């Protein structure tokens, strides 16, 4: 009897490697599949990689309605706890909402470094945002805008939810507030990656996060030929390499 299941190919993954561990976190309505190529790249370079599934994701969109933002933080904690049992140090890297969670991890957990890719500082300016609490009852689903994928092959087999559950956007908003509250207290190295061609998040996001970060060791990387999901785009190798070099430097290996 299968009432529900995890979306095929979008399941969480664990790639055992050396003593340096990295936790990969996917984005809002996304799945661990987005992070898989990055995971395989880092694993080939000798890292132990765990791609975690956030609560309510990669199954059915209605499962996400039950999620509160701290459930996603708890999923992140689970991932870190599991890595702790089999590696000597842990780093976090995430895409979009995964980036938000990476920065929360950087503020509150003993991780070596954090990489935040395509991370928003705030939700896009939209006058309807103020009324979400009421809208969620009349418009339970917000359609996703046109995709900004540059890699059309990756877009074809991309697995995610077909729409944004309105209630979950409220949780995303709360998660963003939690992230911004913690930015100043971050003391570990942080790498921020964003694309100029990203239609999903406001362009100044990376600069705002960069300014508010409390750490002195902060780096940025801009890419051009990529949409929001940089880790599945033509320029992904550039982002992967920067991530690996950054982790190697921070863990002293």
């Amino acid at each position, binding site marked *: 009897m*299968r009432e529900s299941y995890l979306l095929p190919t979008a399941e969480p993954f664990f790639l055992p490697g050396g003593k340096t561990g990295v936790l990969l976190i996917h984005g809002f309505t996304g799945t661990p599949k987005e992070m898989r190529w990055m995971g395989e790249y880092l694993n080939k370079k000798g890292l132990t990689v765990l791609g975690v599934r956030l609560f309510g994701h990669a199954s059915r969109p209605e499962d996400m309605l039950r999620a509160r933002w701290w459930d996603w933080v708890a999923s992140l904690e689970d991932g870190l706890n*599991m*890595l702790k049992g089999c590696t000597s140090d842990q780093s976090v890297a995430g895409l979009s909402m995964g980036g938000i969670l990476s920065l929360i991890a950087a503020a509150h957990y003993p991780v070596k470094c954090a990489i935040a890719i395509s991370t928003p500082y705030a939700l896009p300016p939209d006058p309807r945002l103020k009324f979400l609490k009421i809208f969620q009852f009349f418009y339970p689903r917000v359609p996703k805008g046109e995709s900004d994928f540059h890699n059309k092959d990756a877009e074809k087999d991309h697995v995610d939810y077909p729409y944004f559950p309105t209630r979950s956007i409220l949780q995303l908003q709360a998660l963003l507030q939690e992230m911004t509250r913690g930015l100043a207290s971050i003391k570990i190295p942080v790498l921020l990656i964003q694309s100029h061609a990203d239609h999903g998040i406001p362009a100044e996001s990376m600069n705002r996060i960069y300014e508010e970060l409390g750490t002195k060791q902060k780096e940025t990387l801009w890419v051009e030929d990529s949409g929001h999901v940089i880790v599945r785009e033509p320029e992904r190798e550039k982002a992967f390499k920067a991530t690996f070099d950054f982790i190697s430097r921070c863990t002293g290996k």
Partner: protein
Amino acid sequence: MNPTWPQYPLIVPNAGSFLFRGDKVGCLLVHGYTSSAEEMLPLGEFLAKQGYPVLGIRLAGHGTHPVDLSRVRYVDWLNSIRDGHFLLKGMVDKVVLIGQSLGAMLLLICTPEISPAATIAISTPYIKFTLGRKIVNRFTSTFFPLVPKWHLRKKKINDIRREGNYPAYPLVATRSILELEKVQGSLENTLGDIRTPILLIQSHKDLTEESLAEITTRLTNTKYESIWHEKLDHSLVLDNQRQLVFDEINQYIRKIAKKGGVS
């Protein structure tokens, strides 16, 4: 909202999922209702010492705050187990599922889907939800969302997240009892589909032979073994004499591994 909330880490120390490397057949450990992965930690550490890769999963809604438990549905628990299985598959092909109480029920439900080398079900209840009880459950879940556990009813609860020295919530989120009803229903439907070996371990102090027979009579398509203890508590894996249980589990996994040709 409590001004000191959220407190990091959100998961009670030790209550979160754990993962140990190894090179033999993999073990997926699942804890019981209102408890946390900490319940399975001693068993996990023992098995890891024997060389098994071990993953103890935290079921959704557990190990954080009782209110979180009232929000999760039983598919979230199944998905937690699926998560664990997929992560474990990164290290090994064959797995053994080991669950305690609710964990055992959920693992039996997942067994046809995962088709493991074996499933070890510890203290597996077979709960009969009568119509009267179902009505009471709906009443309490509507009007009394959090109820102290019966044995703690006269004690002052200091920490709402952990029951003193036992790794579980001191309260029951009554909404989640309705999910237990669904788990029970699903269990009744899936027992007949199980085709992989089953080991049942339980104690006379906790379960009756009749209750276990309800399960074994429905296991029509597979072979099962059952081991009875006398004086151990419901949570066999935390009892003072748990080493007995650990050794039995170890022996059983070795036997299964030998038979299946996996090292």
